[in-house]
């Protein structure tokens, strides 16, 4: 079981590292300092480790790091910054969708994947989209609300951009 070189493009940065074949993407990310990716159940039940892998939301605990060689990875923190947070970051804070915060990055990734495909989701679509994520604090109501608020805000800013470009 000799280490293999793996190249990961994470939040716009490229890392090449030697990893044993049995290291999961989850632990590769955390060891590199991307600790917004949380280690929960390691069985694909809780969604705390969710990341975007080539634009698809996945549980990083079930992906071997070698399987992600050459892939683009975006973590919840990589969606924005403190100065320029993503609308989902703001909406989760604004609607009190965070208590202990452990599940939050995974929920934000699941919500991002939903809004990429379905910009104006129904409540049922939101609940399905976050059905692979467990929260033991807030009780999901505020999380659903946060996704609704983020969808509205993203829609408004898109409309604004369209109107601005039309008036140019």
């Amino acid at each position, binding site marked *: 079981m000799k280490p293999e070189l793996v190249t990961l493009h994470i939040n716009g940065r490229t890392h090449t590292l030697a990893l*044993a074949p049995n290291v*999961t993407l989850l632990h590769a990310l955390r060891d590199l300092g991307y600790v917004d990716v949380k280690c929960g159940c390691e069985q*694909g039940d809780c969604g705390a480790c969710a990341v975007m892998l080539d634009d698809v939301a996945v549980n990083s605990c079930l992906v071997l790091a070698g399987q992600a060689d050459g892939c683009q990875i975006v973590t919840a923190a990589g969606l924005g910054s403190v100065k320029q947070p993503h609308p989902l970051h703001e909406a989760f804070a604004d609607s009190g969708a965070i208590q202990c915060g452990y599940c939050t990055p995974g929920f934000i990734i699941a919500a991002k994947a*939903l809004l990429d495909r379905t910009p104006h989701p129904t409540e049922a679509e939101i609940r399905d989209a976050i059905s*692979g994520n467990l929260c033991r604090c807030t009780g999901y109501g505020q999380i659903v609300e946060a996704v609704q608020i983020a969808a509205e805000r993203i829609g408004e800013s898109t409309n604004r951009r369209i109107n601005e470009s039309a008036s140019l």
Partner: protein
Amino acid sequence: MLPEFDLLQPKTIPEALAILAEHGADAMPIAGGTNVVVDLRAGKHQPRVLVDVARLPGLRGIHRENGHLVIGSGATISDLLFDPLVAQHAPALKEAAAVFANPLIRNRATVGGNLADASPAADTAPPLLALDAEVELASQGGIRRVPLADFLVGVRKTLRRSDELLIAVRFPVPLSGTFSHFQKVGLRRADAISVLSAAVGVTCDAAGRCTVARIALGALAPRPLRATAAETVLVGEKLTPAAIVEAARVAGEAARPINDIRGSADYRRQVTEVIVRRLLEKAVAAEVAA
């Protein structure tokens, strides 16, 4: 912590088959890893070599070919859910994809993995059985096709030899006028392992008589299976409420469920009858509407 293994990443299907031929039972294919990684962590397998087939070119497409729908084994459950050909020709399979685990799992889990894992509760199996699906197994000796009903041998047992790779699942495109549905019963709405599941497909002629009937059951025996005696009740008949009730009763008799943490055998048998009846009623209602 995962056990130690080597991870081989072939670039082509022939390369993958050469690796499987060389390593035999010491090698295990891995695609989305939603079963394999969990089982490795639990110590259920100790392969010396994992063969990563997740990004093998040619394994993921869904296309029509000579009156058949061919689904690459690497197609994810999300691919099934969003594919227009699946929606058009295999609505029961789409319905199964929609309630399969959760979206994060659906994005990685593959149809080939779901079948090769051979869980009695595999949610893609009943709709594919109801579609008369075959699996394609490739080895260095060539490709063989095996009916899915034969491929699934028992709990976590299939006909796949260790030098073979499941490369596709295929089924004849159903005749127009075929209506199919799937339903699973879980302990909760999402991310549940099926307590039981069923898929039905019925085709009727212009006179309203049933020409083809398919009823398949999941998590009700050591392997997903067809309830052929129940199908026979319907063929040649008009799908009256009485015929549907009788077929559902016979389907319930085909179930050979066990008691486990998700439900008792008695519960499963009774609910099988109810679910099969409802699915047949839904198929008839769709036919009347069409």
